[in-house]
């Protein structure tokens, strides 16, 4: 018992910390190397290889199943290879230098192996054979020094698209295979997050500690998702946490510390000399470059006797301004630091095992006042129930806090591109912001948001009879998000609000509680009769979601960031106001599944689930999700032919109703109170115009894929999918005489189809030296198939280009073709539908517009590289997207009205100023309002740029200290490694402006470089 537990301890340690461990050969010892694989030839990472009878002398395989073991000179040595759930294999050592092991599954192992129960009880084995499931390489996620787990998932699986949306701490956009609905936004398109069988909110997911995660699976197709029913129409992200082990207690401390950097300069701005020259050309006297120029004096004081003196004085002022050259990028943005401390304890025995961890992380943003810090803790306990089952308990909690000085109406980050180089923080009243000093621009707004998360999950896994599994999970996940927003009384906005002094200072405090309760009971029976392998199962689940938002806004707090400081005597528009929204929804479901495998070659799988949701009225309550899938393992026909090491086909078809983003008020008349009153009466308001014919969206997906392996060195995975959403919902504009401008209606059919492919190759595969490369690409295309009312749909009454048109992609950017600037007028000339030239002051029609490109890049993918040499490991991840375009905002190009703000470098030479200026980029600063429409209302072929980019998203160089190097610690330190890790080091893009990902001048993902140290005791 003791021995086996120790042994397993070694396995586990090795699995966790040193999959790449290798030993240097020393005299008198022999080296045995080889590989551990399963029957299908798939490598078994983390398998244990050791000298029988001497568990101290053992190692484990790396991610590719390789091991190398040092053996003493001796006789009668037996080597064993073992892996959880597999039969242990023993061979005799007779001096060979290479030895491969092929392990067979051990059907009786369940009762003996130190596996804890399956946490995600919907993760039934048969599902994987026909469904499309990507397993995220969690180790790579853990290597990324980034505080936000969801952002670090970027590029971790083909078809999982994560897009950064703004400054640090804001929630990124996560989509599995694009939007499945016409409706934009997270509620309708977000995947379902499941942690150990418990549904959690996306906010909770964002704050998980990556080091507590054992594996993340991305469920993409209907077969994989259908087990979750109608909740899973947008895909599922299934997370399994790290559990305890059967073995000696291992304490691990790891530390990451480093620097967060300012990142890439979105655009290079002008220096003082160029800026003043631009101001002179723009002729706006609000800007000093014109106000003190000779031009100005000659124009306004042509006959003044002191003209020469005035000009000279003006020159002197301008010269003085030229002396100052503030780099606002460096002044306003900062380098900050990143740190992460993690302490975990893991251990147990064959009956009971446990895992506990505590984590603290901090990441500083680019702007002072923007940072995120987080504490998390987790405890889990697994207990065997006799010989036939397990019970697991886990509790996790977290506290995270994000600060931001960027408000909705005001963002100091954007000042980088507005303040003039001749201004400085101490230069008094600013030209760029008249009547304000630098201090009136910063410290204007302050927002702290905190998230307190608590979750607990209990599960039972029983196998009362051989082949029959009864699994049950129940849990609660609770996220309390609070935010505190202050506009201090000292802020410019408040001082100039006209409010009395005791009414200044606005404070908003909001508390949003999101509670998810999950229960799921699943019964699965598996029977093998000869070559026939049957699985049948059924489950019933219940989900409860409770959202309780409340907020209050009050005035008169001064500079105090406390709700208690609100002046409650204020009446009128600044009186204390509160609001509350409490929504509860529940869903009950019942599902069945059946699967059959013949001879390990043919798999078929089907699942049906019916869900009843409280969101819809009684008569429409039940909706179904079903899927069928088949798999064909061609490899089983030529088991012994080695060049092709794997060949497997899969196909599936399924249909799921989607209720995401639908609330009860959309289907029946629902009234709620406003936070206002009328006289002494509360205001009860109709929440929206309801649609009593509203139906849930139906998502139909078809899927086919093939996996192919060559010589056990190269493997290919290619998948094709087509996801059609029928009865797609959208807020459609309606005649305003109905009292509402939009109504949620089932408007049409859209499709999302694509191809996902990945190749991984072992380029070098030697004992000390390994190089693996993985390349993946995903292509997604969307199209409107049908609209129930006509061929086109305009969501705005002013639109001349339809937002949705049958046969067209719905993320297409439309605009006219620009023929460049007319050298005589300085205004763009467009090419009309009939080929004629259209001047800027003419009205463009629909026919003049062409498709300029996709606003969402259709291609995305990753390149992963792993290189190992002895104890040194090098990993790099690149992430790329291409095929999309983005409109340039040109917000840094200045015209007459905003001449007092800084401009992009080179504008003086790139702008049209006078007739005859040829080949200029920016149109004339002097134009009449008749051309405004064509200048600003839509993009044109010259005002867009390709948003392709390639980013080095992760870089890690790790050195594992060998046992020898740790000898001096006398066993106190069992494992140690140090690493240099970096995230988002650079981005290569042709996009000239800002960040091609978020599209904003500020708020790009910042580069972080850290040094990390991990010690296990």
């Amino acid at each position: 018992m003791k021995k086996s537990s120790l042994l397993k301890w070694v396995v586990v340690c090795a699995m966790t910390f040193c999959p790449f461990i290798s030993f240097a050969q020393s005299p008198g010892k022999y080296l045995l190397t080889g590989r551990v694989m399963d029957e299908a030839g798939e490598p078994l990472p983390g398998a244990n290889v050791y000298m029988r009878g001497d568990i101290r002398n053992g190692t484990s395989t790396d991610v590719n199943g390789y091991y190398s073991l040092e053996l003493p000179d001796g006789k009668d040595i037996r080597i064993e290879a073992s892996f959880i759930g597999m039969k242990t294999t023993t061979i005799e050592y007779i001096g060979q230098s290479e030895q491969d092991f092929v392990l067979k599954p051990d059907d009786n192992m369940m009762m003996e192996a130190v596996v804890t129960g399956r946490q995600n009880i919907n993760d039934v084995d048969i599902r994987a054979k026909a469904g499309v499931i990507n397993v995220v390489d969690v180790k790579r996620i853990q290597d990324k020094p980034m505080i936000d787990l969801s952002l670090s998932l970027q590029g971790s699986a083909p078809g999982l698209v994560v897009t950064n949306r703004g400054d640090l701490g804001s929630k990124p956009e996560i989509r599995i295979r694009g939007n499945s609905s016409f409706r934009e936004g997270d509620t309708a398109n977000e995947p379902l997050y499941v942690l150990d069988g418990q549904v959690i909110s996306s906010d909770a997911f964002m704050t998980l500690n990556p080091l507590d995660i054992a594996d993340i699976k991305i469920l993409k197709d209907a077969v994989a998702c259908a087990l979750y029913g109608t909740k899973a129409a947008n895909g599922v992200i299934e997370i399994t946490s790290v559990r305890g082990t059967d073995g000696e207690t291992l304490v691990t401390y790891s530390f990451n510390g480093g620097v967060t950097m300012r990142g890439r300069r979105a655009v290079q701005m002008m220096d003082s000399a160029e800026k003043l020259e631009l101001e002179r050309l723009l002729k706006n006297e609000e800007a000093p470059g014109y106000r003190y120029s000779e031009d100005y004096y000659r124009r306004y004081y042509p006959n003044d006797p002191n003209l020469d003196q005035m000009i000279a004085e003006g020159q002197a002022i301008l010269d003085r301004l030229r002396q100052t050259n503030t780099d606002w990028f460096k002044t306003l943005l900062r380098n900050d630091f990143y740190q992460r401390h993690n302490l975990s304890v893991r251990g147990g025995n064959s009956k009971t095992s446990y895992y506990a961890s505590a984590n603290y992380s901090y990441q500083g943003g680019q702007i002072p006042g923007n940072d995120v810090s987080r504490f998390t803790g987790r405890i889990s306990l697994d207990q065997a129930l006799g010989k036939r089952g397990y019970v697991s308990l886990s509790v996790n909690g977290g506290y995270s806090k994000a600060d931001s000085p960027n408000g909705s109406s005001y963002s100091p980050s954007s000042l980088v591109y507005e303040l003039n180089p001749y201004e400085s923080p101490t230069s008094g009243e600013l030209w760029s912001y008249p009547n304000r000093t630098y201090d009136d621009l910063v410290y204007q707004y302050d927002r702290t948001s905190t998230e307190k998360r608590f979750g607990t999950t209990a599960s039972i896994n029983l196998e009362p009879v051989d082949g029959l599994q009864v699994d049950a999970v129940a849990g609660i996940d609770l996220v309390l998000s609070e935010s505190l927003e202050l506009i201090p009384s000292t802020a410019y906005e408040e001082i100039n609000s006209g409010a009395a002094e005791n009414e200044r200072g606005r404070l908003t405090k909001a508390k949003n509680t999101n509670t998810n309760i999950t229960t799921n009971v699943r019964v699965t029976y598996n029977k093998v009769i000869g070559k026939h392998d049957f699985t049948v199962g059924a489950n019933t689940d219940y989900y409860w979601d409770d959202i309780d938002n409340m907020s209050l806004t009050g005035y008169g707090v001064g500079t105090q960031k406390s709700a208690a400081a609100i002046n409650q005597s204020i009446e009128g528009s600044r009186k204390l106001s509160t609001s509350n929204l409490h929504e509860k929804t529940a869903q009950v479901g019942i599902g069945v599944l059946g699967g059959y495998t013949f001879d390990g070659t043919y798999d078929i799988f089907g699942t049906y689930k019916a869900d009843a949701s409280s969101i819809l009225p009684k008569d429409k309550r039940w909706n179904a999700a079903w899927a069928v899938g088949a798999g064909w393992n061609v490899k089983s026909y030529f088991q012994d032919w080695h060049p092709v090491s794997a060949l497997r086909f899969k196909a599936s078809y399924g249909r799921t109703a989607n209720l995401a983003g639908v609330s009860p008020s959309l289907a029946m008349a629902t009234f709620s109170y406003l936070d206002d009153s009328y006289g002494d009466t509360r205001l009860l308001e109709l929440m929206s115009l309801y649609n009593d014919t509203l139906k849930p969206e139906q998502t139909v997906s078809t899927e086919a894929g093939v996996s192919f392996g060559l010589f056990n060195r190269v493997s290919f995975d290619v998948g094709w999918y087509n996801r059609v959403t029928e009865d797609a919902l959208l807020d459609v504009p309606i005649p305003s005489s109905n009292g509402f401008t939009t109504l949620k209606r089932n408007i049409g059919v859209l499709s999302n189809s694509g191809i996902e492919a990945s190749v991984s190759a072992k380029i070098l595969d030697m004992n000390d030296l390994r190089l693996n490369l993985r390349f993946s690409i995903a292509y997604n295309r969307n199209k409107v198939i049908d609209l129930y009312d006509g061929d086109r749909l305009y969501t705005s009454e002013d639109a001349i280009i339809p937002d949705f048109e049958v046969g067209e992609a719905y993320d297409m950017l439309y605009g006219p073709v620009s023929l460049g600037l007319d050298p005589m007028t300085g205004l763009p000339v467009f090419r009309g539908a009939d080929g004629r030239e259209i001047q800027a002051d003419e009205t463009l029609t629909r026919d003049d517009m062409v498709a300029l490109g996709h606003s969402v890049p259709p291609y995305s993918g990753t390149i992963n590289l792993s290189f190992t040499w002895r104890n040194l490991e090098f990993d790099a991840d690149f992430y790329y997207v291409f095929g999309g375009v983005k409109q340039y905002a040109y917000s840094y190009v200045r015209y007459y009205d905003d001449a007092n703000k800084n401009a992009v470098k080179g504008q003086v030479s790139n702008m049209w100023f006078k007739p005859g200026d040829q080949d200029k980029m920016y149109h004339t600063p002097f134009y009449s309002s008749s051309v405004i429409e064509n200048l600003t209302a839509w993009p044109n072929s010259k005002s867009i740029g390709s948003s392709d980019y390639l980013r080095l998203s992760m870089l890690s160089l790790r050195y594992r200290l060998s046992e020898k190097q740790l000898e001096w610690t006398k066993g106190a330190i069992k494992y140690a490694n140090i690493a240099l890790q970096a995230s988002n080091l650079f981005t290569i893009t042709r996009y000239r402006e800002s960040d091609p990902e978020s599209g904003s001048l500020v708020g790009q993902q910042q580069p972080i470089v850290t040094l990390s140290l991990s010690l296990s005791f």
Partner: protein
Amino acid sequence: MKRIAIYLFAVVLASGCLDIKLEDQYSDPDAISTVQRARELLSSAYNSIPRIQVQLSVLSDDFIPTNLSGSYAEMLNLYNWQERAIDDFSSTVWMDYYMTVATLNALIPRLDNVQTEGAEDEAALACIRSEAYALKAFCYFDLLRLYGPVWTDDNMDKDGIILKDRLELQFLPRSSVKDCIDEIIRLLDAAADLENNATEVYYMGKDAISAIRAEVELWRGDYEAAISYGLPLLGDAASRWTQTDYDNMWSASDSRERLFAPYIFDTFYTDLCYDRESGDYYILNNDIVFEESDMREAWTVYPYTMAADTDNPRQTRNLGKYNRMYYESMDVRYINTIRYSGVCFTVAEAYARNNQESEAVSLMNTYLEARGVPAWDETDPDLTGDALIQAVLEEKRKEFVGEGTRWYDLKRLGGDLSRYSNFGNSVSSTIREGDYRWLLPIPRAEYRYNETVTQNPDWPVIAVE
């Protein structure tokens, strides 16, 4: 298997528990089941009555621009009756009135399901129903005057407004002016037939309903009816027109001059003021002049010194009323929408047009006396015929300047409207009688999605594919 059966049973049981009651939301069928909830829903209809007093005054001849007007381009464009600005204004007006109508359409059918206990509840419910009908008529009447042509025999079959009876998506055409008026009268009759014991001034009581009716009758030229509905309200009018009641209108206090005054918690009438230090975008028209003894002047004219340019301070006559309340940081709680003096002008005009000139003058004299203005001489030959009507309307203009009623009168009476340059130095343009812009355009948000609706003459229509 037994276990499975138990679970199945549990699921069936649990699905029955999906009727989740939300504590802060009420869904049909019993969303509006009590008198209190009905009142609360009605209140949100009251609360959503569009507040367009500033814009309508700017469109009328109440104001002239100042040197600051240029800084608020949108409003200046509206002052100059620019097509685009009127179009923008029209789209919010249309939308907001129909929002109120939609709320009333949500309320009225649900009143049948309200549970009542006892006579008191019954009375309260009847009152709510009466108010709902009246408020709907009030909205329709405003819409008709904004979007429809004035009432003449020729215009009766022309397009009026959309009459909307149900809370559901409909694509309705505009009804004729006559049908609109018939519907308004029908609603007002229905409202008047019900017991209406509303006492608060921010609810539409019996008297407010009569006042609306009088105005509707005047609008459609039935002067006797206008007098018969209006006159009974003026029995104790003289006692209402006191200094205190006048002053209190521009405060959060009670004033007996009010007939209907929606309650407001928000800021109101802040669009006229640039800022408290610099002055207003618009000031009183120079031709609005008060007699020295006129008690209206104190609350109508707010003397101010505006800096036309730094070296040249200018004494100006800014609007008082809500604008002064804004300057003096006083809370506005009531929007004086229907007033007893308004009824007085309606009846006086009806008398004058109905050849009862002496009644008209005597009624006006009661009013003028109360306001501290010398009484009219009944024998004055200048106070007969059209001149008398003009005189009545001139006094009406002084009483209501800035309150958004003038535009309706200008449209009804016809005549040209001058637009001035800054401080009224010169006439910059003239809006002729019969100009197409007197009928607001049907907004794009309506006609683009409703093929059955027609645009008013001469307004552009963006092609709909």
